């Protein structure tokens, strides 16, 4: 099981990591948080694979998870694979997870489950790009479940059943890419209306922008991601006496539309954005 834990202890962020099918590597670290890359330790995702990623962010800490390549779930030839993510962000903590495309090839049969529990004043910013089929393929079967709570109350519960029935009118129809940015724990800024995209303000503080498209290039939410990341990074955190130490948004980079091979390539994670070592100047209020 892959595990990433970040806690603030004695004025210093402490990361506790363990390696599973994905290996976490610290890219940078400061007093209250860290940027951590997830690197595949072998070919993913094959029949029988059970990826488990547990992420815990301690009180007042921040964590930015960076994926170094997208993931392809390959033809399972009758087998199945699972991808389970468990997230816990304690009071005042911040987790930013920039997921790269998760591609479900023809013949794959994958169940994804993401569970996130946020404490009071915690924030989660999560990118998820689901792609049904490589170019020219119909794609395999995917069930993708999301269960998020905010201070113990349900905030978002959403099960997408994207098997052969997904082409039904109203589910996905002819679309095959489901790109989403979820912000929980605070209400992110409004986004401009755009065809094929919906901005959904949740009942509790938070919003989901979901874009549906034919390929990974159209309807991309890179701009929304950048906008919301800046918002999350600039938000004052409860209990924080000093300016927030959440990283500046990285400069917008084109996301790979096709994943790179999944061999471990520790020398080739995306370059980490150096963070300023001094605290950000406080915003005029």
């Amino acid at each position, binding site marked *: 099981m892959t595990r990433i834990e970040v806690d603030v202890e004695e004025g210093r962020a402490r990361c506790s990591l363990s390696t599973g099918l994905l290996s976490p590597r610290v890219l940078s670290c400061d007093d209250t948080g860290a940027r951590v890359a997830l690197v595949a330790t072998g070919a993913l995702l094959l029949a029988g694979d059970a990826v488990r990623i547990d992420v815990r962010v301690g009180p007042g800490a921040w964590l930015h998870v960076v994926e170094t390549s997208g993931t392809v779930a390959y033809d399972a030839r009758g087998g199945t694979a699972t991808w389970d993510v468990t997230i816990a962000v304690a009071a005042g903590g911040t987790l930013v997870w920039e997921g790269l495309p998760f591609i479900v090839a023809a013949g794959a049969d994958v169940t994804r489950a993401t569970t996130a529990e946020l404490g009071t004043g915690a924030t989660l910013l999560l990118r998820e790009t689901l792609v049904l089929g490589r170019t020219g393929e119909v794609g395999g079967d995917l069930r993708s*479940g999301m269960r*998020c709570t905010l201070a113990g*109350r*349900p*905030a*978002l*519960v*959403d*099960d*997408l*059943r994207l098997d052969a*029935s997904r082409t*039904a*009118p*109203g*589910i*996905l*129809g002819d*679309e095959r890419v*489901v790109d989403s940015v979820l912000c929980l724990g605070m209400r992110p800024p409004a986004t401009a*209306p755009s065809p*094929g*995209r*919906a*901005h*959904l*303000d*949740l*009942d*509790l503080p938070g919003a*989901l922008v*979901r874009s*549906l498209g034919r390929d990974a290039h159209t309807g991309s939410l890179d701009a929304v991601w950048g906008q919301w990341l800046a918002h999350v990074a600039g938000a004052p955190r409860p209990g924080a006496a000093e300016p927030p130490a959440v990283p500046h948004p990285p400069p917008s980079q084109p996301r790979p539309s096709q994943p790179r091979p999944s061999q471990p390539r520790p020398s080739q994670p995306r370059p980490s954005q150096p963070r300023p070592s001094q605290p950000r100047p406080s915003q005029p209020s």
Partner: protein
Amino acid sequence: MHQVTGTHPDVLLMLLADARLPTGGHTQSAGLEPALRAGMAPRDVPAYMAARLATTVRVEAGTAVVARHVALGPARAADGAPTLADVRAAWAARTPSPALRETSERLGRGYLRLLRRLWPDHPALAVLEEDLPTRGRRGALTVAGTARPAAGVPRPLVLGVLAACAGLDAVRLARLVAYDDAQTVAAASLKLEPVDPAETTTWVLAAGPDIDDVVAEVSHLTDPDHIPAHGAPLMEQWAEHHARTTERLFSA
């Protein structure tokens, strides 16, 4: 005692399934008008009906069934027993589209008015007033200083309380929610596309097995956490777009 006593539950079931009930059902197309405007082919209406029964209708029916169970109050004294506020929270978490939540709460107000008139002294209504005291009240319809309407009580939750008052069991309630959705699609299609009314009736009849699947999935539920959460991303987009459209036949 109950104002409506001695009336067979089947009559009450027919009453609740009747489009002539004064609850504003005529303003609804179950998302069909938004779907057709977005370019869905009219020949796909039966498939659309089935897609709803596989997704959003299960959230609705599950919410109604659990609300009925909670309103009947068998576990009310127990610590940590779910309240109707928990049922509403579970429904809201499963309905990320604000347009769909607002539509449901607007319809809920109509049912709530009827409920208060028909069963003013029923214990199930008392549970609703206790658990969600400020919701759906006249005078509490807008949040001061904002354009957003105050949160109401979603339609399936009120339907669940109505079922508790009317003596409808969970199976009948789930079937009512599913049938009503299919019939709403069928009736709306008559106003949106040139189609033979007998033809649309065959669609509802053909959806029978799908309606039974809904009943089988939700009628035993008692826990808000177990309410199905099957999403329909395109329907959400269409609903959001329709809510910002001015020239429309149906409100949703």
